[in-house]
């Protein structure tokens, strides 16, 4: 017998012995109804999302109609030498995560620019499915810039998990990102910039 069958058989037998109910003929507990969870909602999701992003150490900039994001990023990071992105609207990129030879060639990126699908008001999470060949750009960059349409904010994680989707081409990975990489592992002192991006800025795009 394979390990899998062996383990599952033992597990099943022990569950049956302890949880089989002769009267109902059922084994174990039922799945609860989750549709009645009274989850938090916000009168202004965008305001809450901005507030939460700032509280987790991130930044938010509302991009005005017609404003050029390339110019904006340049103003935000005047000293940035290496900018990585595969987004067509980003013209200032010096590196492309789709065409680098190896993921590690993205090391030394000053600013990485990626796209988020939607934000979550309760905790500032932004859903970022992998949409590039090397996802390293999302973590290896010193500073991360996430472009997010400002109409795309949901209240909470229940709503978020109803709508997450992976990319069609790069369908193996997706992540929620809420603020910059951080740690408090040295004496419980909060420090921004542990192993991944040291700063995270969400650019809220007009429709």
């Amino acid at each position, binding site marked *: 017998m*394979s*390990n899998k069958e*062996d*383990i*599952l058989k*033992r*597990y099943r037998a*022990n*569950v049956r*012995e*302890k*949880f089989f109910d002769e009267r109902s003929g059922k*084994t*174990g*507990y039922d*799945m*609860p109804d*989750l549709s009645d*969870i*009274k989850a*938090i909602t916000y009168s202004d999701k965008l305001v809450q999302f901005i507030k939460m992003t700032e*509280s*987790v150490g991130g930044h938010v900039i509302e991009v005005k109609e017609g404003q050029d994001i390339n110019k904006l990023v340049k103003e935000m990071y005047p000293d940035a030498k290496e900018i990585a992105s595969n987004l067509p609207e980003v013209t200032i990129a010096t590196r492309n995560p789709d065409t680098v030879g*190896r*993921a590690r060639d993205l*090391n030394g990126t000053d600013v990485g620019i990626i796209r988020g699908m939607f934000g979550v008001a*309760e*905790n*500032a*999470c932004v859903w970022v499915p*992998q949409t590039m060949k*090397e*996802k390293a750009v*999302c*973590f*290896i960059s010193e500073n991360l810039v996430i472009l997010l349409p400002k109409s795309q904010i949901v209240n*909470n*994680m*229940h709503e978020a*998990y109803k709508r*997450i989707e992976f990319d069609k081409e*790069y*369908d*193996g*990975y*997706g992540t929620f*990102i*809420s603020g910059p*990489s*951080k*740690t408090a*592992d*040295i*004496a*419980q*002192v909060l420090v921004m*910039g*542990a*192993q*991944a991006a040291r700063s995270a800025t969400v650019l809220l795009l007009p429709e």
Partner: protein
Amino acid sequence: MSTGHSKAAKEFLKNQTYSKWHDATFWAVRTKRDNMAYGLDEWEQLREKASQIKRHTITHLDEYLDQFAKKAEENGCIVHWAKDAHEFNEIVYGILKNHNVKKLVKSKSMLTEECEMNPYLEAHGIEVVETDLGERIIQLKGQKPSHIVMPAIHLNHDDVGELFEEKLGSEKGNHDPTYLTYVARLSLRNEFLTADAGMTGGNFGIAETGDIVVCTNEGNADMSTSCPKLHIAAIGLEKIIPNYDCLAVFQRMLCRAGTGQPTTTYTSHFRKARPTAHPMHIVLVDNGRSEWIGNPEHWEALKCIRCGSCMNTCPVYRRSGGYSYSYFIPGPIGINLGMLRDTQQHSGNVSACTLCLSCQTVCPVKVNLGDQIYQWRQQLDDFGTANPQKKLMCKGMSTIFGSSGIYNFGTALAHWANIIPSPIINCGLNPWAEGHKMMEFPKKPFHKIIKDLEK
């Protein structure tokens, strides 16, 4: 009469400045957790749902495991099943050997601690680099974690500063946490770029989609899997949950309960390897779990999502530290998991509980932690691990409390003990006098007071 835990706790308490800091630090984390919980009207509803989901899932886990494995294989992952720690270590080593891996970077995984994977791999010539900052610190120091979420909490910034001066060549005397974190960042960055494989644990496995979900603040799980060409994910059987609707409940609670944050920075879903890497491997580990589910009093320990909130709130953990427990997971959940693992080795921990039940009041999935500890205590005699001195005392007390004549006689005479000089009564031979002064017995016992009032 002292248990292993209380002896170790005595050592911990010798450094009063530190032990006070430890207590206050965890109480602050508990307070942050409270603020998060009170910030959501639905918090108690979420706890109840989380508990029900877990009860359902672990009593149907064979079905969900099968569904998860099939889905993961459909996604292109290679799924392995390990019945115990040794088999797990062999499987991991086998994968690494096949890919000619010299260096492995890994994110935090209590499962690999449970299986003592690092020493096994190192003995087989593989360099293992922990990438969670806390884990990296204790790895460099040659120590074990003292908390499951904050593994290096037993060290202060001077300890870490001196360690980094020696191991990472940091500036002498600069013990600023921001600077030290930056030094570790540079050093670990180099490890990420030069490793041949990355390993992650998993907070959740999703049966419906085959996703492995990993929650970190540092982004080290994502860094560990972004550059190396091979990703191995290792999870215990009980980490599998049915679907995204269930995940939403747990994702909302894990970090709020554990560290008092609204979420971890990263909640990452790994479904298959990135396009430029080898297929992803998933190792599902039993190591006792398929037996524990049948344990009549303790099966609910399998509901645990390893948030750490029970240890943060525990008055005994806060005042005795992680190293006072004999099992590698400390605090209320560690007491229970340790006993499930080996009653002979870990019975000393069950005394590390005041039965205040704060743990099960904060537990986001409502594991009945304190009730279980109480149950273990009732079984110590069966395990042959009951303390003989305490047993004798209990027998004596049964005799005294079982007979009103002996009881009244004793309490009437007890006040004569007051005239025994303090150096004699408070000496080492009287176990009661250890840590507290002997009490003064009243001349008039309580029963007599009541009787006189009734006259």
